[in-house]
């Protein structure tokens, strides 16, 4: 059988979509999470409730949103409210999953999307800032982080903690006053799926993407990774997933 060809972004989207469960609420940010949610809705999770920070709840993701407040985020939705309602819903513990991205991540899943290099007042690179990222990472039960897997992004220490992961390690979230039982759950990249060790809260390699070796993952990570005892390989995207993604989810090719 021919191997299907797909891009790293398509692989990332398909892997993230498989993590989205039916009958759950998922806080969706701009970019890959939107595509993953749209794909999951059409595959295994018709009852997935996508939640967008400016007020869209339970949209049918017919056309791909390009921004988290667009009318595409509340097309045939069950509710169109406002930002306070949505973030308060997360704050009172209702929302299972939060999907996030970032420019840098550290071993505890802390994310930076604010500044790189220099000082805060005079950075080498100024990024957009928290947006809803900090809120999602603070309140959702399980955050799933979607990243490009590069050494300069997977760093020992992020230049700025925009969004809390496990902060400095076990117990640190709770000590800071963040809700107990919350935190990063998975990191999905085009090389691997990673999780966090239940005791040390350090990032751990759980699964490899098709054809990727442990060495490749290590080489693309700027800190020491824990490796799960039994490493499995993800199934590659299916023809059906790729067809839906290309023909129905993003026919305008905004992302893929």
């Amino acid at each position, binding site marked *: 059988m021919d191997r299907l060809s797909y891009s790293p972004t398509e692989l990332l989207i398909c892997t993230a979509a498989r993590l989205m469960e039916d009958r759950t609420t998922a806080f969706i940010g701009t970019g890959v999470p939107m595509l993953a949610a749209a794909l999951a809705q059409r595959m295994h999770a018709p009852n997935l409730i996508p939640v967008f920070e400016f007020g869209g709840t339970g949209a049918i993701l017919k056309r791909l949103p*390009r921004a988290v407040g667009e009318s595409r985020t509340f097309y045939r939705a069950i509710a169109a409210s406002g930002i306070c309602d949505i973030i308060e819903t997360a704050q009172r513990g209702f929302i299972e999953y939060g999907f996030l991205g970032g420019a840098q991540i550290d071993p505890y899943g802390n994310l930076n999307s604010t500044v790189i290099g220099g000082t805060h007042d005079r950075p080498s690179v100024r990024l957009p800032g928290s947006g809803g990222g900090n809120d999602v990472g603070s309140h959702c039960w399980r955050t799933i982080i979607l990243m490009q897997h590069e050494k300069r992004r997977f760093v020992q220490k992020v230049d700025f903690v925009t969004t809390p992961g496990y902060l400095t390690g076990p117990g640190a979230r709770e000590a800071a006053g963040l809700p107990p039982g919350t935190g990063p759950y998975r990191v999905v990249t085009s090389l691997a799926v990673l999780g966090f060790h239940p005791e040390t809260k350090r990032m751990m390699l759980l699964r490899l993407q098709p054809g990727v070796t442990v060495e490749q993952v290590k080489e693309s990570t700027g800190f020491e990774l824990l490796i799960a005892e039994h490493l499995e390989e993800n199934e590659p995207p299916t023809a059906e997933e790729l067809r839906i993604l290309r023909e129905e989810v993003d026919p305008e090719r905004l992302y893929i």
Partner: protein
Amino acid sequence: MRVLESGMGELLQPYSMVEFREWNFTQKPKGFQDKRMTEQEAIARFVHDGDYVGTELYGTVRCPMSLAREIVRQGKKNLRAVGQGVLELDLWVAAGLISAMDITYHGLEIHGVSSVLRRAAESGRLKLVEWSNGAIAWRMKAAAMGVPFLPIKSMLGTDTFRYSAAKVAECPFTGEKVCLVPALVLDVGLIHVHRADCYGNAQIDGISGFAFEMARASKRLIISAEEIVDTEEIRRYPDRTIIPYYLVDAVVHAPFGSHPGEMAYLYERDEQHMREFLEASRTEEGMQEYLHTYVYGVRNHEEYLDRIGRDRLAELRRAVLGR
């Protein structure tokens, strides 16, 4: 209440809830008066140099872009701003109107980081105080509630907190740590809506972002509306009124007021113009040229729409997703 930690960011808009009460009691227009005026008049009368200004929602979605451009045209100086900024903040920062900003997100979503913000922040020209989206919205909610702060559970443990003007305190009831965010009382709020009557009763279709909170947190409020309707229309569907007239100081009729952004159920965003803007904004010269073409080079919103082209605008109406 014991304060455990303080963010080192500056409180850009010091406030007094006693004064805000006084303002709401004495300065807000309670009589039914026709407040319709042009962008020029509204900005000239209600936005002053040095003001703290906010826009809602953000640059590509139901944003008061005709008002934002008029502020640039009139060259208001030394403004401080808050917003979930995309284009509107890019315009203001590029035109050199902003000295400091309560920032939560200033970028271009799928199109990535803002070149304008990068130039201003990386050269140290722009003072930035960090917040999360929730924190900013709740700061306005506190002002809307008439209380000086709100306890929230965002920002704890992060640099976002350390570079904010928030505080961490021990909850006097449960003992848990809470982040306290100060009320945000804006000098001027700018909100674009689907319809309003001449008095300022305003309705929004679709998500309401933080319009409810910002309208109630603003000392002066300018509404721009796609459509001016008869008050009878408002009275027929009062449940849809998010902003009642007594919060409003000026009403501006601005069809396509969100362009190049979108307006739910009315028109799509102008992706072609967005790309033109992105390309232009990559360099300081390109950005200044953009401002000359689309802001300084037109006298008002009507002329701006002519420059965009009526055919294009009609296309954007046809492309709308519908219900």
